[in-house]
């Protein structure tokens, strides 16, 4: 489908233009989601998109689905109620690195542990953009943020490992540059039965790039292109070539009992006992 048709079909055009800065890659991630939804043929009326607070979370206002713009960090918790109360809905959560892994980190690990059928898309730009450039749990060590004027002292989260360790049954990482695989991961995540998480590496030229002298938006996109390697290729690379490289790809794909199905199973079992 052409871009203009996608916009017409899935965006709330009255709410455009969006609030994102020139060069921001949140638009690419949002478009990729819409392409994935279109290719999967999801019913807009049966799809709910939930977000928290932050730049990425503003996406829901532009998307023509059932949308909920919730409180900071709590999107997964709201989404859990939406899904469990009405299992026929497809529930997708859009969250940022701060929203999902700092203030909402507890909900991330527990939604993963529960293996509830939600798809979490973390648009990770390694910075708090909405509040003006403070470091987040994914800002690299020693990088600059307005609240880390001498460099971040902490070590960053690896969101893929975090989600995997917490029990997510589908985990992938893509980037705003590698769009075709990104769309594929979004599709696989939405189709996966259980808790799925896709981290999307995004760029924030305004607040991350400027503070850290990462160059223009185009230069930052080039950095994504040059430094991210598909995991299967990375595994075959000699050690010396891995220096400075990051990986994207699908990391976890497994079947485990899904929370809502398990719960509905209990309801049906109890009903059976009552009828018997």
């Amino acid at each position, binding site marked *: 489908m052409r871009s203009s048709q996608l916009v017409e079909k899935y965006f*709330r055009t009255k*709410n455009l233009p969006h609030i994102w800065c020139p060069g921001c890659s949140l638009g690419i991630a949002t478009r990729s989601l819409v392409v994935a939804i279109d290719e999967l043929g999801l019913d*807009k*009326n*049966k799809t*709910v998109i*939930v977000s928290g607070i932050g730049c990425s979370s503003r996406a*829901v*206002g532009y998307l*023509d*689905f*059932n*949308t*909920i*713009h*919730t*409180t900071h960090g*709590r999107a*997964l*918790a*709201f*989404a*859990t*109620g*939406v*899904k*469990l*109360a*009405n299992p*026929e*809905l497809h529930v997708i959560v859009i969250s940022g690195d701060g929203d999902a892994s700092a203030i909402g980190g*507890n*909900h991330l*690990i*527990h939604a993963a542990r529960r293996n509830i059928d939600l798809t979490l898309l973390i648009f990770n730009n390694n910075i708090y953009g909405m509040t003006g450039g403070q470091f987040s749990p994914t800002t690299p060590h020693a990088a600059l943020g307005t609240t880390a004027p001498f460099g971040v002292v902490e070590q960053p989260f690896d969101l893929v490992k975090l989600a995997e360790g917490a029990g997510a049954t589908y985990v992938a990482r893509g980037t705003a540059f590698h769009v075709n695989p990104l769309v594929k991961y979004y599709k696989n995540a939405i189709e996966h039965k259980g808790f799925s998480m896709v981290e999307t590496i995004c760029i924030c030229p305004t607040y991350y790039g400027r503070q850290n002298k990462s160059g223009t938006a185009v230069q930052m996109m080039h950095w994504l292109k040059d430094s991210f390697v598909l995991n299967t290729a990375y595994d075959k690379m000699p050690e010396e070539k891995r220096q400075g490289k990051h990986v994207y790809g699908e990391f976890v794909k497994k079947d485990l009992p899904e929370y809502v199905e398990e*719960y509905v199973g*209990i*309801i049906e079992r*109890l*009903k059976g006992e*009552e009828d018997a």
Partner: protein
Amino acid sequence: MSKAVLMQGNWACVEGALYAGMRFYSGYPITPSTEIAELSAQKLPLYGGKFIQMEDEISGIAAAIGASISGTKSMTATSGPGFSLKQENIGYAAMTEVPLVIVNVMRVGPSTGLPTASSQADIMQARFGSHGDYPIIAVSPNSVTETFTLTVRAFNLAEKYRTPVMFLTDETIGHAREPIVLPKPGELPIYDRVQPADGEEYMPFRVEPGEIVPRMPAYGRGFRYNMSGLFHTETGFPSNSPENAQAQIDRMFAKIYDNVDDIVTYEEFELDDAELVFVTYGSTSRSVIPAIKSLRKQGYKVGMFRAITLWPSPAKQIEALAERVKHIVVAEMNRGQYLQEVARLVKGKVPVTHIGRANSEILLPSEIEALAKEVLS
């Protein structure tokens, strides 16, 4: 007539909620409210409903709001610290006008306080606990039977006025077991939120003529709209306009305060010729009533006004009391919270005294009797 059964207050709350149509509960265990979660876990799947124990108090209320947006009557329950943790999302539910019942089985605070002991010290937090200006409905029962009927009413008010409703009980009533005759289906009215008809032209936050609140379709029915904690226009989408913010907040207050006569309920006891009136609520009324009975036998003209709806307060009724009695005593299990509201309404027309504490010892009828005699002498 059905037979009375012995039931705990917290259980009666769940039975009332199920009667009202609750089909979703999410929360986090905390004393002394935990029995509400336990019984919900046991009963909801039998009704085809859902229970989920969340990872914390915040997600406990967040999931309940999500379920209500899905079109399911939802409840969460908590106590003490948990009520503090829920405050941000209480504001979200008020702002997005999502029907929800929040039970607070009050215990002694601040902080961890006395977890197994009773208090009524969250009255002001129930009204003003979340940031910003918003209206709220709060009700408080004084018996196991009233816990049932008032829980049903809390759901009805939540649905009718599209608002979170605080159900403020306490350890005394929550853990007490008393006989209750459970109402039969159909005996109490049940109210469901108004939804738009299929295919209706729908504006998510517009009030249709003759209605109180915007219609609220369940997500998934085809009315794709946006919920946001940002100030939003009738469309549901954010707006920074001061005029819009003013109109929205005015409408939110008006839906509650223009309908106080429907929302506010209260009980009067021995008020006709009373010179001294105790204003009280919830479990403390059980200390006041025997004191009044004893004082009446001794010839003292005393009575009680029990607020069943605490917020919005029974302002008209309390203002009227101030015109006809000589003295008002506010009795509550705290150091003077509802006192502030009563004093505000009485406007100095008659003296207002307070009796209360929050150290776990409930007020004794003898203390109340002694205070009345002192005041009247």
